[in-house]
């Protein structure tokens, strides 16, 4: 692992933590395009990556940025880009390419309100559904939602690990609060950081098939241009990597691509609960809305209300079963989101309970008081 100059604690923004964590994870190729509120990630990496003998390039647009990081990752280097809503929209076609061609990569979206240019400088959680379904077709993807600077550091590293292990694009969803807040961050010790590398083939170029089925459902990788002359395409393809129109092979490909995440979801999904043991009300929160929720539930507990939190770190795959498990003694679910309820519906699906939405789309953060008020209202 690359050593970086780290003290035990430091003041840092979420965007800075994301960039530093990527370098710790071994990321050595960044291509991006300026967009508020994500630009600091590119700025930090434009300084840091040449120092680490990595590549930083500012591309002509987000379509090119996504294309460049996919091609770089094919050669075996860990790669990433960072953007916000409109740029994230422009990346979607090539995110689908990464899903289809099974190319590990990490995309950071520091969300802004939308649609369109929306609210460039204000917080939002409006990319939750875009991060899952932004590109066309059934496709595998993993999306994480940290809520603090330290969590951003940890989940950026974990995102690279997911990308490498499952050969999928992974999205880090930040919002403007986490991206720009300056917080104390206590770095994990080196021995606490786990770094995963993609599994590479042991076959010779003569026998290697780039998409050969394995017991794990994840094909073994060969660095593109290292003597294994294979074909990569966004067309539906067979084990050889060449296009196919054979219905059986096409069906097998799409099912395996999606199965790859479904099968390992228990090893992917992470969440955190507090005060849920005896709770009658559960607040399901993610990203910076979770920050306000912690304060709200502690105040509610002081007022004698039985309320707890279910904080989601991996929003896709969504923790349907995990939420269902905690739901039997919960009477009401509250879902605070800086959108009009993108995750509330999923919570409702998972728990088959009434879900009370607390939404803001005016560019303001959801305050602890707003959540507390709803908790009090529900508990009456």
């Amino acid at each position, binding site marked *: 692992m690359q050593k970086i100059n780290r003290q035990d604690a430091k003041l840092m923004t979420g965007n800075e933590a994301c960039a530093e964590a990527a370098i710790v994870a071994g990321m050595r190729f960044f291509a991006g395009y300026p967009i508020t509120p994500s630009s600091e990630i590119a700025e930090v990496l434009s300084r840091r990556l040449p120092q680490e003998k990595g*590549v930083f390039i500012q591309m002509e647009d987000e*379509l090119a940025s996504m294309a460049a990081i996919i091609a770089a990752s094919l050669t075996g280097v860990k790669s990433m880009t960072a953007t916000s809503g409109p740029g994230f929209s422009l990346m979607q076609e090539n995110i689908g390419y990464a899903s289809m061609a099974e190319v590990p990569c990490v995309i950071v979206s520091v969300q802004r309100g939308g649609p369109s240019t929306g609210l460039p400088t204000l917080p939002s959680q409006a990319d939750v559904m875009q991060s899952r379904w932004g590109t066309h077709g059934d496709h595998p993807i993993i999306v994480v939602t940290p809520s603090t600077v330290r969590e951003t550091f940890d989940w950026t590293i974990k995102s690279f690990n997911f990308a490498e292990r499952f050969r999928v694009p992974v999205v880090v969803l930040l919002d403007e609060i986490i991206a720009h807040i300056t917080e104390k961050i206590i770095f994990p010790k080196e021995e606490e950081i786990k770094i995963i590398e993609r599994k590479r083939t042991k076959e010779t170029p003569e026998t290697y098939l780039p998409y050969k089925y394995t017991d794990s459902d994840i094909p073994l990788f060969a660095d593109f241009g290292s003597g294994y002359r294979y074909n990569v395409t966004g067309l539906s393809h067979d084990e050889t990597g060449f296009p196919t129109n054979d219905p059986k092979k096409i069906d097998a490909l799409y099912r395996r691509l999606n199965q790859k995440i479904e099968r390992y979801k228990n090893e992917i999904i992470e969440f955190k609960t507090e005060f849920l043991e005896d709770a009658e009300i559960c607040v399901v929160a993610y990203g910076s809305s979770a920050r306000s929720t912690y304060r709200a539930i502690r105040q509610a507990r002081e007022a004698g209300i039985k309320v707890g939190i279910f904080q989601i770190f991996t929003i896709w795959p969504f923790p349907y079963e995990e939420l269902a498990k905690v739901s039997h003694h919960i009477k009401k679910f509250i879902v605070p989101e800086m959108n009009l309820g993108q995750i509330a519906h999923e919570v409702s699906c998972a728990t088959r309970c009434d879900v009370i939405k607390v939404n803001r789309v005016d560019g303001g953060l959801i305050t602890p008081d707003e959540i507390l008020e709803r908790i009090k209202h529900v508990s009456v």
Partner: protein
Amino acid sequence: MFPYEKYLRLDKFPHIWCTGCGCGIIMKAMLRAIEHSKIPKDSIALVSGIGCSSRTPGYVDFNTLHTTHGRAIAFATGLKLAKPELKIIVVSGDGDATAIGGNHFIHAARRNIDMTVIIYNNYIYGMTGGQASPTTPLGKKASTAPYGSIEPTFDISGLAIAAGATFVARSTCYHAVQLDKFIRKGLLKKGFSLIEVLSPCPIYYARPNREGTSVDMLRWYKENSIPIEVARKMSDTKKEGKIITGILHNIERAEFCEEYRKLVERVSKN
């Protein structure tokens, strides 16, 4: 007989191109150029987008990357920067490179990143059934220009020169021998090189425009091509409607990956 088999993925044939299509002529010229440049197969990455030209990578035994529509040069940029020792060739069409991919095309030329871009210019979107492209000549018919195109065209080579490419040549599928010489020179050039090749689409371009068979189109290329050396001495009115062939531009300028390498040397820790 040139040993094409050495470079072909024979199990991928028959190809999908129509009878009389120019794609095969360009592919073969590219293979001859590679053979004569003595670049090993493992060192070549052939990148394409979407369209008829972009099916070339499937048939040839290199590191091949068939990407999304218009983005071949953007993928190629990532590939070259991540692995500068690779020799990058991009094959693209007039629509792929100068309509949907126009931005990447001019920016790669501006950066002067080391790659050779071969554009199969057939004046039409062939793969999707003959829609008008940025090079469909004024007045010519296409499936989306049933009354004849009213749009001015792009001069692809001129665009590349203006954007900063350091080697630009134009040829046609009639001039196959000249073509592999230009591609070879492009491959050996350190920088962004562009080879524009006029290529017949007898089905979707010639048919609605009553321009005959592929052979008729090749004959038209032959009769209307003027070498750049001759064209320089001609008046603009005499040159109108003619195809100016040859090495149009060949200059030296700092190459992007090399400049990046120097930057890393300057700022990196050992």
